[in-house]
């Protein structure tokens, strides 16, 4: 019996219900819509072309792809800035007795239905909702503030929806650092800031990178948050792709848009990886002490 026998059912499952269907999307993107009433495009090799990609980067759609990238980058960055002190606090300052309970509390919103959380925000952000009325109460605004169906509304929504995906890997990373390393750094005369910047943060870097990936990738493909909070002014790539498949039945164009969306994700990841590796090389070159994680590198 070959070693992978027991994995064979799952492997087949992934091929039949993941790899092949996704392959078909690629095929659609090369094909042609037959007419406005036929769902399935013509995908015979004789009609293969890149026309759908040309249509998808049309000025009507391109700003939405750029907006998606912008919302995702800003969203990932805000999640990181919010989570860094929070996860550090949870992992190092909270007493171990409370830590498990508080961690459980972070998991609750994470596991609450995405749709439900987003509907909660649509209540809070609506012109007669909490944010608007509180701002009027304290006199910061004299008229209702419409955050719902704006890009800002989507931005708040995505930060909220993906925040736990940044908090948790960062917490795990901070929690696994031996406190002795921080104490050693302080005993050797480093300030709190210096200890954090030169000892704690480099060791927590894998967690930060995992968190950024876990937030950025699904955020780029988000469909529910922009639909519920964005309206026409805050639509994202996911909304575009979905409407080609569900409303206009142009699977070819929708497929091409999905491919462009994935290309945006991959391009962003490649750029960030290169910049990250360069920064790491510069940081390591400028430091005299090697941390345990870097000895092997």
């Amino acid at each position: 019996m070959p070693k992978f026998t027991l994995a064979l059912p799952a492997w087949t499952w992934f091929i039949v219900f993941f790899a092949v269907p996704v392959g078909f999307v690629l095929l659609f993107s090369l094909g042609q819509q037959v007419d406005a009433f036929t769902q399935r495009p013509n995908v015979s090799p004789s009609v293969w072309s890149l026309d759908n990609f040309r249509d998808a980067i049309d000025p009507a759609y391109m700003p939405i792809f750029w907006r998606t990238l912008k919302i995702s980058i800003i969203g990932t960055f805000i999640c990181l800035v919010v989570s860094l002190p929070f996860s550090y606090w949870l992992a190092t300052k909270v007493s171990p007795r409370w830590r498990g309970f508080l961690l459980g509390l972070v998991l609750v919103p994470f596991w609450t239905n995405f749709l439900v959380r987003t509907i909660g925000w649509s209540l809070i952000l609506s012109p007669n909702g909490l944010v608007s009325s509180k701002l009027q109460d304290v006199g910061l605004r004299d008229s209702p503030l419409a955050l719902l169906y704006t890009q800002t509304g989507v931005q708040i929504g995505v930060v909220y929806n993906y925040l736990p995906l940044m908090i948790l890997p960062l917490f795990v990373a901070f929690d696994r650092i031996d406190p002795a390393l921080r104490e050693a750094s302080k005993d050797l005369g480093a300030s709190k800031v210096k200890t954090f910047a030169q000892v704690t943060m480099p060791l927590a870097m894998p967690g930060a990178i995992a968190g950024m990936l876990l937030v950025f990738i699904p955020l780029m493909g988000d469909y529910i948050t922009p639909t519920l909070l964005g309206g026409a002014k805050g639509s994202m790539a996911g909304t575009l792709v979905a409407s080609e498949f569900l409303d206009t039945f142009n699977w070819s164009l929708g497929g091409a848009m999905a491919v462009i969306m994935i290309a945006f994700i991959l391009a962003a990841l490649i750029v960030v990886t290169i910049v990250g590796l360069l920064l790491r090389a510069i940081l390591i070159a400028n430091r005299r002490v090697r941390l345990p994680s870097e000895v092997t590198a």
Partner: protein
Amino acid sequence: MSAGTAVRARKRVSWTGVALTVWGVVVFVFLFLPIAWIVVFSFNTGRILTVWNGFGFDGYKAFFDNPTPQAAVKVSLIVAVCSALVATFLGSLAGVALARRPGKWAIGFLLFVALVLVTPEIVDAIALLPWYVLLGKDWNLTTFNSGWTRLIVSHAVFSTAVVTLIVRARLAGIDETLEEAAGDLYATPIRRFTQITLPLMMPAVLAGGLLAFTLSLDNTVISSFVFVQGTTPWPVYVFASVKAGLRPEIASISTLMFILTVIAIGTVGLVLRRGGGSSTDIAATMTGTGT
């Protein structure tokens, strides 16, 4: 640490510690704000959810009087149980193979698992809808015209990957000596598996199964593409209602499903804790960030 620093730490209030605690409280408020809002507004008596009218149980009454949302919740529960069973079966086997029979094949397989986990859900959704049409209508595999099959299968793709990683992590942490001892004592491979390996991996199998159940219960994006009229799961019902206009009953269903999710996730936590995991391990497992 010397006695001197301990005394100093007790006497001096560190401003960074205070600032971090304040920030921690702020983030928790942020995390629970929309959930609290939904729960509060589920007791709204008005006709429109967004405008507060008064306190009452009208939303819950509307849910229990209306067969459509009840049917949707029922569809979701049945689909969640079935897809969790499928995913637990496939994922557990794959997890055992990865932990106990590693090799070059594992690299290729794990690449698949990783791709399944990172692909944005909308891509799976637009890929599966045409695929089911092709299988069901062109190739006459009529089961794929059924909403049940479509939902169960779709939900069980992602969760199979999750269960695989959880079971693999559990077995990789336990060395093989017990299983080898059973083999030395002439246990057949089947008995060895059912009496030694299976009990050892049980906490991971249960936790994985419950996570698969919750993932299916919550799935909105793929479901709203592949569902068939007559088998509408509750998130799709809610999503459609949002577009038509929010009513308080939506908040009531959401609150009820929220309670169900908390119970399921609390159980996962307990199972993993009794299986000997630290809270860090549990958090890592439950978010798929630990492996």
